[in-house]
């Protein structure tokens, strides 16, 4: 593990037995797990290169229990790491040796479906897909659909502001959540938003979404539901170069078309996927673009014609329109299975998540090839082409000495490259521990201090998920100080009227 976590608190470790006992009084029965064997499944999340057994695992079932556990930990100065399904790819749920791991899996009920207001009220441990399934028979769905949607939970989606393949048109989690109940580290329970639109004061819900479990523990969520489009069809387009594919994406958007989904894969990814899924992907192209149009049949047919023409103008060498729902799903099955497919051709892979201005794609892919040569590692690329979110999969073998280190160094270079061309470190996987130490490539000390002051407003003792997101933790008292530089500022320069 190359990332240093906050030093464990010896006093907390020494009190472990007493802490476990106290927690058992708050969460009875099997809700407190303290043996090494039973805690083992919680030692890592989707970023498997990192693992750490927690102090103890607590699985509360009610908001009241969450509140009591947090209040107890707050009073005792014990760190807490919240966890949803544990699918984080950035180590957001990586336990701490001296921290309680608060698993939210038992919060798994859909509490209310209100189709008149087009919302559902769910507990945070409900999986992303389960929300859509719960309302499918009425023709509704929940729009964000990260690839891990079978397993990942709504609570985790809030922590990471998850997107998925449809977010160019339908937005990310932050655009699809209306309200939540959160418990602060003190145990205080607050409700933000509800079934209505707009925040009533500061947009605290907007701050919670994407905060990676550092501000509060979400215990209930109100999500927007959308009516399913009448039809959806996908076009699969092959290009002789990624430049051509990138140009096609720009041309589609410039024509005023916002597809429901627009995904790109490079040659290594296409080959890995085709071998695995047999989706009928062309193997002789350098880049493959999947474009999905949704809406009434008349609209979809009209737009597909236009997309086909744009693709031809952009030198597409193959173009296939799905002729049935089954075939549309098959086209997508390939894309959605890209990660496991790559997992089959390489013992290990390291999934990156930068976002770039779309026009920079050819440049970024070219530099990435050079980096691959430099680090002597393979790389396959899948790309949310509509919104510029790039997922390079770096192929390595953890059993070969030095390969993991090289993969991590390669990954860091890729992310620096994303920032250099005007993009960002992470589109939807989060900073977690993985990209924590790269934060200064995007933010100044002042920027990071301002963000940490938000953290202080929610969690003044810094006990909730410390060691994630911020490379250096400052005490809130220190951050709160004003550094006044004196009264005689250059006022004469500023025009006054």
């Amino acid at each position, binding site marked *: 593990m190359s990332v240093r976590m906050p030093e464990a608190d010896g006093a907390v470790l020494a009190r472990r037995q007493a802490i476990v006992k106290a927690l058992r009084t708050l969460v009875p029965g099997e809700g407190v797990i303290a043996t090494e064997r039973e805690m083992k499944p919680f030692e890592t999340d989707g970023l498997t290169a990192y693992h750490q057994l927690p102090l103890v695992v607590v699985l509360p079932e009610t908001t009241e229990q969450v509140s009591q556990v947090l209040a107890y930990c707050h009073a005792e100065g014990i760190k807490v790491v919240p966890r949803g399904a544990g699918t984080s790819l950035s180590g957001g749920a990586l336990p701490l040796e001296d921290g309680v791991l608060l698993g939210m899996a038992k919060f798994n009920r859909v509490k209310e479906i209100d*189709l008149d207001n087009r919302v559902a009220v769910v507990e945070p441990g409900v999986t992303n897909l389960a929300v859509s399934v719960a309302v499918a028979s009425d023709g509704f769905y929940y729009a964000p659909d990260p690839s891990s949607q079978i397993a990942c939970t709504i609570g985790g989606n809030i922590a990471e*502001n998850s*997107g998925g393949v449809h*977010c160019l048109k339908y*937005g*990310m989690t*932050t*655009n699809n959540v209306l309200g939540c109940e959160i418990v602060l580290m003190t145990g205080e329970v607050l409700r*933000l938003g*509800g079934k*209505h*639109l*707009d925040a*009533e*004061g500061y*947009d605290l819900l907007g*701050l919670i979404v*994407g*905060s990676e479990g550092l501000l509060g523990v979400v215990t209930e969520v109100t999500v927007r539901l959308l009516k*399913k489009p*009448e039809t959806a069809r996908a076009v699969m387009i092959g290009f002789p170069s990624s430049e051509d594919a990138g140009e096609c994406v*720009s041309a589609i958007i410039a024509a*005023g078309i916002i597809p429901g989904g627009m995904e790109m894969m490079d040659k290594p990814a296409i080959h890995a996927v085709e071998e695995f899924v047999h989706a009928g992907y062309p193997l002789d192209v350098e880049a493959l673009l999947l474009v999905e149009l949704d*809406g*009434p049949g*008349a*609209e979809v047919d*009209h737009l597909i014609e236009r997309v086909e023409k744009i693709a031809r103008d952009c030198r597409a060498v193959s173009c296939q329109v799905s002729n049935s729902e089954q075939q549309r799903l098959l086209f997508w099955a390939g894309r959605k299975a890209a990660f496991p497919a790559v997992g089959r051709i390489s013992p290990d892979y390291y999934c990156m998540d930068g*976002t770039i*201005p*779309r*026009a920079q794609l050819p440049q970024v892919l070219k530099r990435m090839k050079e980096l691959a040569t430099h680090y002597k590692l393979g790389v396959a690329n899948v790309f949310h082409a509509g919104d*510029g*979110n790039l997922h390079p999969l770096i192929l390595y073998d953890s059993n070969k000495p030095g390969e993991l280190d090289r993969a991590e160094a390669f990954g860091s270079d890729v992310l620096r490259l994303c920032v250099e061309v005007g*993009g*960002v*470190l*992470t*589109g939807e*996987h989060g*900073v977690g521990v993985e*990209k924590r130490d790269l934060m200064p490539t*995007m933010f100044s000390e*002042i*920027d*990071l201090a*301002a963000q940490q*002051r*938000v953290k202080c*407003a929610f969690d003044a003792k810094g006990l909730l998920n410390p060691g994630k997101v911020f490379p250096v933790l400052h005490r809130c008292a220190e951050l*709160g100080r*004003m550094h006044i*530089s004196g*009264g005689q*500022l250059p*006022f004469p*320069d*500023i*025009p*006054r009227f």
Partner: protein
Amino acid sequence: MTDILKPRDAKDVEDAVAWAASNDKALDVVGHGSKRGIGRPSQTDMTLDLSALDGVTLYEPAELVLSAKAGTPLAAIEALLASNNQQLDFEPMDYGPLFGAPAGQGTIGGVIAANQSGPRRIKAGAARDHFLGVTAVTGRGETIKSGGRVVKNVTGYDMCKALAGSWGTLAAMTDVTIKVLPKPETQASVVVEGLGDAQACAAMAAAMGSSCDVSGAAHLPDHVASHFAGLPRPEAATVLRLEGVTPSVEHRKQALASLLKPFGPVALLDEKDSVALWTSIRQVAPFAADSARARPLWRISTAPRQAQRLAELITPAAQMFYDWGGGLVWVAMPFENEADAGSIRRATAELGGHATLVRAPAALRAAVDVFEPQNAGLAALSKRVKDGFDPKGVLNPGRMWAGV
């Protein structure tokens, strides 16, 4: 008369706020001042006028992104986008005329600070949903940046959300980056005539629950209908907007018309009338009229199906109409010096949601809460957030709540 500081660039803004912070001065942060009448009356020492921070600094239509200095006129941005067949999808309303000011004022920074939106809110969200990146000067006199120029970004806290809708109380924005979108090829509207409030809410819910992809849903009761442009008759109208490519709009227009027939007589509006109608809805036309301007005006956000119950809880002498499928209710009170905050707050407490006293004489805005009062826990958290950004209360102190 307070002094006005007019910074020429972002550095001047930082200097001005740092100066104010070190001299215990409070600043009234404004762009064009088109929304100055909104909020609690402020006691500031000076005005920080950001209107000289003017200019679009980046516009890449194919990347759907635009960056501008915060004081750039909204009208200039909308014109630039229109020349490329694009638009701000959140369709910000224009508060100016509600206060008797000319239309078309306002800056992009102000639009974001007030988290403005329009009738497309049900589909496209508000300013916050399109706000990608920011550079701003906090009340500490420090320049911070957050977000970026890409849509998908979870790198650090989403500080853009904190600033959107903060009414300039946390930081003075100097540069903003927003998502822009293609303008729909055409639009049309379906009108159901003569419905009462309850039936109208049911009709709007049916339309919103269909796959017709409605991009505007409003109910304009009898007593205000004559103020709206484009309607076939000046009587109660429940209106639904459809936008997109021509074959799609045609198809959905027919589908929606048959869906709504059981509710009452249906009329169809072509593109021209539809544009006129939704412009007047967006501008809250009845309450911007000379005859209505003295009336205290509330903007109430609640769950769409609660709208009708909400109306029952408010004095029958009030005038009102429903935007956003009923989720937003504009209410104009009958008497100039009576906001009737008590019944409004009781209604939001019972039904959920929140109310803002958008327009009222200063004395009234000083006497009653302008923004929805928060419970002790939320109020304390809001205050801690404010203190993190602006511990000395330099920026618009007290505009949202006393002491914040």
